[in-house]
């Protein structure tokens, strides 16, 4: 029971990878990639958790009360916003592929020639 969060993060990562590998629609592939990215946030935040501790915000409590790890939260919060912009860039590439080849099926798109 003590490794359940880490196993869930691994499960989500594998589910996202399986979705990317067997996808038949480019936009479905991009959303599965987003799920795989979210598994890393869960792993990071679960690593830094302390049972019975509060958030690392000391506006109303004196510094010294037990708090969880702030460094992994700092890593995760910039990561969430930046990965959304990356997903938007991938969506633009998918739209461009559709305009170029007429299909969104990754298994029907031929590689570029010459």
């Amino acid at each position, binding site marked *: 029971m003590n490794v*359940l969060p880490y*196993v869930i993060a691994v499960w989500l990562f594998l589910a996202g990878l399986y979705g990317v590998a067997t996808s038949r629609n480019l936009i479905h592939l991009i959303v599965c990639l987003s799920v795989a990215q979210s598994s890393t946030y869960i792993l990071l935040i679960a690593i830094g958790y302390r049972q019975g501790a509060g958030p690392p*915000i*000391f506006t109303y409590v004196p*510094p010294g009360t037990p708090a969880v790890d702030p460094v992994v939260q*700092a*890593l995760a*919060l*910039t990561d969430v916003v930046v990965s959304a912009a990356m997903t*938007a860039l991938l969506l633009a590439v998918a739209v461009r592929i559709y305009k170029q080849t007429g299909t969104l099926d990754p298994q029907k798109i031929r590689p570029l020639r010459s």
Partner: protein
Amino acid sequence: MTIRSRQIMALGSTAALGLLLVWGVIRLPDFGAYPGPYSDVLNAAAVAERHVTNIPSAVNFDYRAFDTLGEEFMLFVAVAGLAVLFREQRGRSNRKNPSVVQVSEAVRWMGSGLIGFTVLFGMMIVLHGSLTPGGGFQGGLILAMTVLLIYLIRGDEAFERLSRRAFVEALEAAGAGAYVLIGLAMLTTGGMFLENLLPIGRLRELDSGGTIFLINLATGVEVSAAFVLLFAEFLEESRKPSSER
């Protein structure tokens, strides 16, 4: 390769990878028993050293400010790449195609009721980033969504006026450049790049934190302008006349 064989191979390889990952993850410390010393040191020292009370924000913009600089420029480059991808296809035509979206009255009423509160809330989250949960990234995104809310309420003429490309691009570049300039300004006074040398103010007031407050503002401006540009490019791309589809 048929679909069935691809599925079987994907299942097999993800199962093998899963076994390796679970074997690695079992050796981590128990959930809820984080032993690390770095976080204890930061939680105990950051409030007294910098007079900020939002420790992840202090970590982002002061103790590990260089990493956040890299992340912010990743955002900048992603939006620039998206703009290049869309504009190169569109060419230089200045036709204003009509929007194909019909917005219902209920959405207009609710949007008009919510927009004042959302703008104030976004600005509060950005400004109080070093005191309460929030910061430039979250608040900037909320401010970008208010511009999108104006698109839903008033249609695309109002949205076009608010998101003029030259203005939004200049704002985004100013936000990203201000981050670097603050760091370089610290270099000119003899400190390290992005070291916090400004007066750190009073505890739990808005003028605390020194450079944390300024970098927070710059990030808020940059993120909101970047996402407004992103939404504007997407919405303009979706407004082609139906004969071209």
